[in-house]
């Protein structure tokens, strides 16, 4: 399993090295970016956080997963990042089975996906530049490439003026932008956003969603988990609604219906 992962890392990186990267989302490969196959997640003693969840995400899609607190959104994301294993069924990122991942494989999975969290999770003792650079450093990118790419990614999220600031010196919206930049730094095939606007005011939240849409437009598959009704309704893309751990609805141009 690990060998496969490393091999993929390698080919992707050489692609990056040639300058313009072909958006993976437009690859003509007939498989899903993300697939939940009859997934159940049971927390002891008998809480079914997810109950036979079944859905697929095609490359390049933008999908919102909505539901009230406790509906299973977080459990779902934890499965996608390999923080949890499914108790029944399996989750696939491209052809990679989460169930089969070992602890040694996890770092490699996490270099394929980018994750944005509600509580942001920036390294407090590193500057904006270093936080984004760190995600590339762990992937073994060369220093010259990091020097070159990080400012560009930060420009994409509108944080090019704050390279040397520490997270504590930034506002909530700014921090989340940096976190998004970090999630993008290693060119993920899939961007997961877990309530990224949860701690933000409505203007900042709207800007963050615009940023996610822009990233999706460039070709990265985006999964947005949220319970922010207005935001979801403004996106006008696919919406999967979770209720009590089950998929209650799945619509191509969905609305928040709860």
């Amino acid at each position: 399993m690990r060998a496969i992962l490393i091999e993929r890392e390698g080919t992707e990186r050489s692609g990056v090295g040639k300058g313009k990267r072909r958006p993976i989302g437009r690859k003509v490969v007939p498989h899903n970016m993300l697939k939940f196959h009859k997934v159940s997640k049971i927390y002891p003693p008998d809480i079914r956080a997810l109950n036979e969840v079944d859905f697929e995400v095609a490359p390049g899609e933008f999908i919102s997963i909505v539901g009230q607190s406790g509906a299973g959104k977080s459990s779902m994301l934890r499965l996608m990042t390999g923080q949890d294993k499914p108790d029944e069924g399996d989750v696939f990122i491209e052809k990679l089975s989460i169930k089969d991942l070992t602890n040694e494989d996890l770092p490699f999975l996490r270099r394929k996906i980018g994750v944005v969290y509600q509580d942001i999770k920036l390294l407090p003792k590193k500057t904006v530049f270093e936080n984004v650079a760190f995600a590339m450093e762990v992937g073994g990118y060369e220093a010259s490439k990091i020097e070159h790419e990080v400012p560009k990614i930060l420009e994409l999220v509108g944080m090019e003026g704050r390279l040397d600031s520490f997270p504590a010196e930034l506002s909530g919206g700014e921090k989340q932008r940096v976190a998004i930049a970090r999630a993008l730094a290693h060119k993920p095939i899939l961007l997961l956003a877990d309530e990224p606007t949860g701690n933000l005011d409505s203007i900042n939240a709207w800007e963050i969603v615009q940023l996610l849409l822009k990233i999706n437009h460039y070709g990265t598959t985006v999964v947005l988990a949220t319970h922010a009704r207005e935001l979801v309704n403004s996106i006008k893309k696919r919406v999967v609604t979770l209720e009590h751990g089950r998929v209650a609805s799945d619509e191509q141009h969905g609305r928040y219906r709860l």
Partner: protein
Amino acid sequence: MGKITLLRVIKNGWQNFWRHVWLSAAAIAVMTVTLSVISILLVLSFLTNLSLDSIKDKVDISVDFELGTEESVIRNYEERVKQLPDVASTRYISADEAYLEFQKRHKDDIGIIEAIKELDENPLFPSLVIKATDISKYESISNTLKAEAAPAVHEINFEDNRRAIETLGKLTSGLARGGTVLAILFALVSVLVMYNTIRLTIYNRREEIEIMRLVGATNAYIRWPFIIEGIIYGLVAVLITMAVLLPLLSSFVPKMNDYLGISLNLTSVNSGLLWQLVAVQLFLGLVLGVLSSTFAVRKYLHE
């Protein structure tokens, strides 16, 4: 680990050291105390060992010969003594040499010097000084010598200080044993305190470790900067310990040397013992720093 990765973890370790400067200061302070305690215990053991050696070194058997005994007679006797088991060395002191030594020893005491000058002839006996291979062998050598009736032997001096030597031997070996137990106990306590301090500093940063995991850092990549920090703690603690210890030693050791009649050299650069001390500190500092970090960080790596 590739070269790029190595440079990166060193850079990260160095950076973390400075950006968590208060945590670093706490860890270094505790490690400095640990190293100081262990160093002081070591210096004390140097002192006891040296003074024990010097006391043992002062023990000998002195065979005095009648006044005016020919040197050849004494040399003959010396040859026979050398054949005995457990004799390490012998030294012949002629009456003239004894006289010179006597004068030298009492050079400040004019009364004695004058008195001895009044005499017509040298009142001091020629003698043979015998050293044994081990302090416990003196008794048997002395007994052997006493048992045989050699010509011209005036007196065999050993009995006098035997009891004192035995008591001292028991005392010092008891002290050494108790001291070692105490030293190990002290060292263990300091090591525990030190490990816990490093554990706390890493506990403080558990969230950082979790974040690093989430952005795809391998466990090794997370662990190494902590190990580098541990190495820096160790090195800085050794420097501070030596900076504090050297002035203390240079005022304390000469006094002890005078008092105990030994010559412990711990303050000049060509002192082997000083470098031994530094080596022990470096070894402990680095091992403690590296092991504490490794163990403390393990918990958060879900290994």
